[in-house]
């Protein structure tokens, strides 16, 4: 039956249109959230910087401490991986990139005969590894798009605990670093054992003269011991915030291209639908003309116009205007 294809196309167009509405809304939401996430990441920077500066001063003051978090293990038997991905999909390659990077690392360590222990952040990471029968030791869900300091502390406590008791001898952190709106890259970093305090100080870029005259209370060692867990938490928190900003930026980009694709698809489908409608009209006219000829009667021009109007009212409308009134620019 003519018109069947047209109806089919019309249905597809309206479905693509509603998809486009959804992706567009998600794009706009992600755009506002990425700004907020960036502000939060910026607001968190002073604390991390100051903690590093305290460590710098402690190192300059000659604090040496036998802290479990600084313990360097001779032979690494088991490596912990903190993998940070998102709770939700529809964010381009945001989830798969860190997950794959971590899996590669994990396989590399496995081939050297080391065991692994997974700490996954986000539903997607947990689901990926569980589906592939990896042992997921700890999994943290439900806060990736807006992480709080409490969340970072929970993870840091578990990881530091496992490290301190010797369950794991090394910890790698895999997360998505937020470089700018346009660039986010997966970053694999050694998380534990912490570098020596002197290395931390050098990385911090501080000048170590003149400040070695610091007074410490109770003692440099005691301060450092209390400070290291906070430093670990602050680093994790920073990574979580970077991840949140990256997730929103990725989602915004993914949803923008989805919206653009939907637009292209709608244009293409409307063209196809118009062509199908035109073809149906032509076929019907041919049928009428053919039928009239078979009856052997001339079809009077008025009847033809009436028949045509019944098939396609819009197409006939301009002919209803008498030639005298018709404006030269509104030719049919």
């Amino acid at each position, binding site marked *: 039956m003519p018109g069947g294809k047209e109806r089919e196309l019309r249905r597809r167009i309206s479905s693509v249109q509603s998809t486009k509405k959804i992706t567009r809304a998600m794009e706009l939401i992600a755009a506002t959230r990425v700004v907020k996430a960036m502000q*939060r990441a910026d607001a*968190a920077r002073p604390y991390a910087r100051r903690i590093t500066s305290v460590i710098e*001063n402690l190192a300059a003051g000659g604090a040496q401490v036998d802290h479990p978090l600084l313990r360097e293990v001779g032979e690494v038997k088991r490596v912990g991986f903190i993998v940070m991905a998102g709770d939700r999909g529809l964010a381009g390659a945001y989830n798969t990139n860190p997950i794959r990077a971590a899996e590669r690392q994990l396989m590399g360590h496995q081939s050297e005969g080391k065991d692994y222990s997974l700490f996954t952040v986000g539903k997607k990471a947990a689901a990926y590894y569980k589906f592939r029968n990896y042992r997921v030791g700890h999994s943290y869900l439900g806060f990736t798009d807006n992480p*709080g300091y409490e969340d970072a502390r929970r993870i840091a406590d578990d990881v530091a605990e496992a490290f301190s008791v010797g369950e794991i001898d090394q910890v790698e952190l895999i997360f998505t670093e937020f470089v700018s709106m346009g660039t986010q890259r997966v970053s694999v970093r050694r998380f534990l054992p912490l570098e020596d305090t002197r290395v931390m100080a050098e990385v911090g870029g501080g000048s170590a003269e003149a400040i070695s005259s*610091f007074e*410490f209370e109770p003692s*440099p060692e*005691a301060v450092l011991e*209390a*400070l290291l867990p906070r430093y670990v938490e602050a680093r994790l928190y920073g990574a979580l915030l970077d991840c949140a900003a990256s997730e929103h930026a990725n989602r915004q980009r993914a949803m923008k291209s989805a919206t653009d694709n939907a637009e292209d698809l709608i244009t293409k489908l409307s063209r196809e639908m118009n062509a199908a409608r035109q073809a149906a009209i032509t076929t019907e006219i041919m049928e009428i003309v053919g039928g009239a000829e078979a009856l052997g009667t001339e079809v009077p021009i008025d009847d033809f116009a009436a028949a045509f109007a019944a098939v396609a009212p819009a197409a006939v409308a301009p002919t209803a205007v008498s030639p005298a009134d018709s404006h030269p620019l509104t030719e049919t």
Partner: protein
Amino acid sequence: MFNVEVVSPEAVSYTGEADMVIARTVDGGDIAFQAGHVPFIGTLAVWSVDVVKPDGGRDVFAVHRGFVQVHGNQVTILSDVSESAAEIDVTRAQTALDNANAALAAHADDPEAAAAKVRAELRLRVSALC
């Protein structure tokens, strides 16, 4: 006169100028900083941090865990759990204190209740100061 900052992991929650800052360090007792203090780093006890402003006014914070760094003309309080006097919910602190006392009456050596009691008492003290 010098600058004071209270920095939490989420944000710089307070900045201002002060004539004197009074804090209490672990094992060290109360310590007051004035302009020109020697560089100093200390671990803070669960206690208040008292900022005496040049106009004589005071800003008081309850700091449950943190560090103080004094360097040049800058006093920095680093704390992941701190509250200004205005942020403290007095009725909640009072309830927490009552609960902790009740728990301690039942088990005198309950470390969590003891810590809760210290926190609640600090909150009440800080809010009373303002």
